[in-house]
């Protein structure tokens, strides 16, 4: 049997040309998916728009004018009309993207972290630990997500932080479920058995062999929740549990323009359209990612 004798000199490993890895293949397949690429570009545009809102928006989103209330789309100086307080709709939509995106992405991201930890641990260790953890998660999962979000926000009180918290709690159970089921599949693979047979401890096996194989699918699932989160956050704002006026936020705008639906229906529908376009883009993007990742090898 050969032993490895390490000399004092540092060992030089000659680099080899890496063959294209898994992610190269995912990217290649994703690029072919026109719909997903289009959705990705829309998402990118919305993100850029939100980040550079101060430069992109033509007017101050909070400057109101009693004389120019509820102008139709196409009014000079108001390309997308004006809202019930005479504020420029285009600027408000652009600025509103900030908070809407934030409320879409942040709760899902936090829930992704916690849900993955819970689900991967439950799936990997199995047995009683799995049963106890997953049944506890199921208690939250049993509530319809809208109801749970409203109940939690209502209990915690209105405000951005509280709606962020309640949305995070809403999204942990479904992500933990997915993480658990993917991990259970991976755990039974022979390469995990082989890793155990080489004497590695649970944390090393999870880090090297499990995470790389489960985080992709969990992440894809989580991106599909971004649109749900945005809609729920808008819903909370609509009910007065989220953002407070005059901060521009799509759900809140939808709420305040509700009364103007007979006067300026097109203007009143704009925040809804913005939510719709953003959420469907996120969904199409995550669908594209899913199918691009769904090929063996």
């Amino acid at each position: 049997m050969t032993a490895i004798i390490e000399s004092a000199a540092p060992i030089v490993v000659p680099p080899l040309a890496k063959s294209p890895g898994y992610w190269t293949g995912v990217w290649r397949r994703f690029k072919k998916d026109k719909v997903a690429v289009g959705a990705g570009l829309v998402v990118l545009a919305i993100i850029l728009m939100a980040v550079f809102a101060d430069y992109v928006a033509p007017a101050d989103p909070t400057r109101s004018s009693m004389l120019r209330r509820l102008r139709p789309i196409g009014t000079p100086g108001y390309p997308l009309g004006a809202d019930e307080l005479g504020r420029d709709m285009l600027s408000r939509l652009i600025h509103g993207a900030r908070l809407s995106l934030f409320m879409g992405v942040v709760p899902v991201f936090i829930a992704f972290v916690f849900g993955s930890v819970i689900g991967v641990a439950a799936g990997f260790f199995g047995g009683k630990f799995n049963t106890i953890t997953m049944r506890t998660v199921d208690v939250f999962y049993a509530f319809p997500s809208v109801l749970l979000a409203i109940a939690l926000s209502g209990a915690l009180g209105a405000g951005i932080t509280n709606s962020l918290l309640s949305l995070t709690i809403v999204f942990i159970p479904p992500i933990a479920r997915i993480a658990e089921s993917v991990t259970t599949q991976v755990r039974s693979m022979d390469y995990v058995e082989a890793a155990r047979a080489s004497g590695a401890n649970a944390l090393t096996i999870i880090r090297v062999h499990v995470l790389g194989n489960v985080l992709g699918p969990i992440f894809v699932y989580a991106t599909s929740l971004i649109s749900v989160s945005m809609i729920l956050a808008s819903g909370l704002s609509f009910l007065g549990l989220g953002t407070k006026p005059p901060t521009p936020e799509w759900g809140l705008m939808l709420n305040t323009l509700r009364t103007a639906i007979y006067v300026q229906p097109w203007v009143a529908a704009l925040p809804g359209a913005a939510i719709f376009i953003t959420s469907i883009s996120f969904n199409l993007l995550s669908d594209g990612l899913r199918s691009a990742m769904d090929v063996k090898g």
Partner: protein
Amino acid sequence: MALETHPDRGGPGTPLLQAKTLTKHFPLGGGAVVRAVDGVDFAVMKGETLGVVGESGCGKSTTARVVMQLIPQDKGEMLFDGEIVGGKDLTLKEYRRQAQMVFQDSYASLNPRLTIEDSIAFGPTVHGVSKAAAILRARDLLQRVGLDPARFAARYPHELSGGQRQRVNIARALALGPRLVILDEAVSALDKSVEAQVLNLLADLREEFGLTYIFISHDLNVVRFISDRVMVMYLGEVVEIGPVEELYNDPRHPYTKALLSAMPSMDPDNRTMEAPLTGDPPNPINPPEGCRFHPRCPQAQTVCSKVKPALVVTASEDGTRRAACHMEIPGSGHSRAPSLEAAA
């Protein structure tokens, strides 16, 4: 830290692995129990290859997993070179450096997200070898299993053929410098020509590294080719064990006879016309009383359904052959059993 060689502690006379009444039962709902492995005793001598044969569901793979300690046994213990596995002289982690396993499914046993050199290097890094040294060792092992490291080391499993992947799995098993390698149907999924290459490779590596194999297979020809001794399992029990040629030429247990006669003959004049085994397929949930083979055994008598035959020394002067059959136990009550006087 370097992986130093493992000293031969017990000397050549001590078996490398000794399994004593290994038992693994899987509980089903409602009180039913699958007796996958039921009191299995065997020893593997240093440098030999022990073949394990039997039908599907006879407990071969469960035995392998228990021996590898991937699942803990319910009862029994194992001695590795004279030391209790998992005891204070030989921790489980240390044991796992000295015993390794190659699985049947070459694809499922390699992490699809790791390059094959990373897969092979994983084991040594777990045991404290630096990453760079482990990678060099992985490339060296790839060379030895017949894969050019310059071409293969940085590839991913899906870019390799089944035979190449199984070579990688063998290299991975060897990366820790084990003394015992368990090959669980390691060549069964390969096509015949590749199977032969991998078998030759295994035989070469055994010489080169001084390995001991436990070779599990349902393919009797392959087992005959590679094994020194053969163990026949039936419903979670050992029914016969002995040197390969003696056992193949003169099987003592009716089940072994049936298994061997089920081997397809290469000679058309010699073909078997009727099925060698009849009767109910084995059910490890409710194994028959007495000898577990008696419902399918052509020579079964009353004693066979009542008394469980012990694994006794048979048909050899030196005690290397054992079988668990009443026809081999003097005075067992079976009409074909040797008389007590003859035995004395």
